[in-house]
């Protein structure tokens, strides 16, 4: 696959503070990428840069093998190849069809072709009934779908979506994500979307990019909890996370003297304690299964320990003793799955 974007030492600063700092990133064409990270991680900033609505404070962005030139004339050419769907999209005043045809009209597409494309796009997002509807009278989910149709109408090479599943109900969320998938397969449109939810991202994307504090990281922001140091026991420290998670951690994992911690449990390293084993020892917890889903050939389990703990089971382990929703399950969190970040 050819490289679509290349970011080299790209940094974006606001009032002297770096909100994004990427030393190197290559994004392939025709793929679906998901951008995962907590609030303030720099996801929207990165999407603004990739959509050429903003320019880096320093560094170089190459698009289609050519360094992006931010002078007005050249910028319009590259900007017209990419479209960004906002987290809270806004529709122009007027009927839905006028919104969807906007990008085509400013490109000088003929009226008849515009109409055909508008109908096709509204059909794609399941909003054909709303062709003549007043755009400002649509619900949040409908607005998002019309905004998606408006973005797709111009047949972009790249579709960037900022939290496409946010602020919409489950039904609209699934519709939007399935459209993204379809568009990628049918039109070979490259898609980059941001999300808070690792599972949502991984289920759809070919690649996952994780951002934290403006930096690309390979640590999934999953099972991240606030924790407070309760007491020290020899070379170990007892930390209270929300709910029943009273974790014993080796002292060397902690920042010296820290009382408030950001604790992470790696979902890949959580061990299952089978029924006939006696649940004993440190960091053993029992909870009810609240979520079971398939995730790239593995089974993702959500366990309710007053807070949700997610982890993976291999398909083989799952088939041996399949858990059920509401059933009890005991897990062991070995030291290898515990990580401790800087204080919150």
């Amino acid at each position, binding site marked *: 696959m050819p490289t679509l974007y290349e970011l080299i030492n790209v940094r974006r600063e606001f009032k002297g503070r770096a909100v994004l700092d990427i030393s190197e990133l290559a994004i392939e064409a025709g793929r679906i990428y998901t951008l995962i990270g907590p609030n303030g991680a720099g996801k929207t900033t990165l999407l603004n840069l990739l*959509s050429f609505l903003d320019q880096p404070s320093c560094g170089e962005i190459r698009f289609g093998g050519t360094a992006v030139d931010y002078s*007005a004339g050249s910028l319009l050419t590259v900007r*017209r190849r990419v479209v960004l769907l906002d987290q809270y999209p*806004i529709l*122009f005043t007027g009927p839905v069809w006028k919104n969807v045809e*906007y*990008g085509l009209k*400013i490109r000088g597409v003929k009226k008849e072709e515009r109409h055909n494309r508008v109908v096709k796009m509204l059909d794609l997002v399941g909003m054909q009934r709303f062709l003549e509807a007043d755009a400002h009278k649509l619900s949040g989910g409908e607005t998002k779908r019309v905004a998606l149709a408006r*973005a797709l109408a*111009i047949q972009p090479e790249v579709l960037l979506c900022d939290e496409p599943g946010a602020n919409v109900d489950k039904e609209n969320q699934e519709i939007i994500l399935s459209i993204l998938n379809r568009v990628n397969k049918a039109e070979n449109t490259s898609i980059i979307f941001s999300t808070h939810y690792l599972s949502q991202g991984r289920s759809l994307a070919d690649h996952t990019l994780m951002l934290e504090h403006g930096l690309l990281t390979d640590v999934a922001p999953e099972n991240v909890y606030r924790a407070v140091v309760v007491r020290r026991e020899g070379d170990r420290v007892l930390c209270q996370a929300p709910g029943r998670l009273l974790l014993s951690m080796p002292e060397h994992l902690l920042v010296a003297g820290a009382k408030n911690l950001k604790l992470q449990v790696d979902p890949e390293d959580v061990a299952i304690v089978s029924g006939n084993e006696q649940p004993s020892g440190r960091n053993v917890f029992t909870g009810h299964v609240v979520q079971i889903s398939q995730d790239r050939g593995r089974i993702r389990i959500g366990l309710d320990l007053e807070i949700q703990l997610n982890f993976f089971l291999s398909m083989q382990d799952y088939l041996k003793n399949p858990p059920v929703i509401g059933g009890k399950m005991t897990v062991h969190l070995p030291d290898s799955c515990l990580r401790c970040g800087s204080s919150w």
Partner: protein
Amino acid sequence: MGLLTDSLQSAILLLFSWDPELWLIVWVSLKVSALSTLIASIFGIPAGFFIAYRRFPGKRLVLTCLNTLLALPTVVIGLLVYSFISRRGVFGFLGLLYTQEAMIIGQVILIVPLVTSLTIAAISRIDTRYRKTALTLGATDLQMAMVIVREARFGICAAIIAAFGRVIAEVGISMMLGGNAKGFTRTMTTAMALEYDKGEFVLAVALGLTLLVIAFILNTLFHFFQGRTHADTV
């Protein structure tokens, strides 16, 4: 009290008798005010858009100056323009003094700051996502500006109406630059001032009533557009 009721009665009769002198005065007022408003809008709306959307050094100073100009007395503008277009002035050779053109020049100076300020206010209220959306859909700067103006159209209409209301009711500029020439530069406000000086209240009251009706219509329109602007932002 008797004077007022008698004048009011006679004024209503005068209005419904379709007195040509009265209606000529009304026509001149409407024509001069409409042209002033049109010209001021041509300058004021783009200027307002530019100031609202661009960052440039001295922007705060420009906004302060605009707000100051809103309070500029009409006689000061009359005096300033007079100094340029009187026979001894730089543009004296154009023979503009005591013409409708002179009144229009003065009135444009009066309301350009008003149109600009209200346009800035209208544009600033528009959600910034409109700009971002237009740009990501491939709009040029001009096409993006058209989207913003379209979304702010009710606020901009309100600015135009407020400006028209300001000029149709002003008297200083019309008197000093127009000269209150009968059938030519006599407007409703200058005619009312003259009739008052003469002690003839009937025509003054009739014109006053007409002006009130116009002011009422303008205010109704203004509130309609203002209301639409607020409703749109909810």
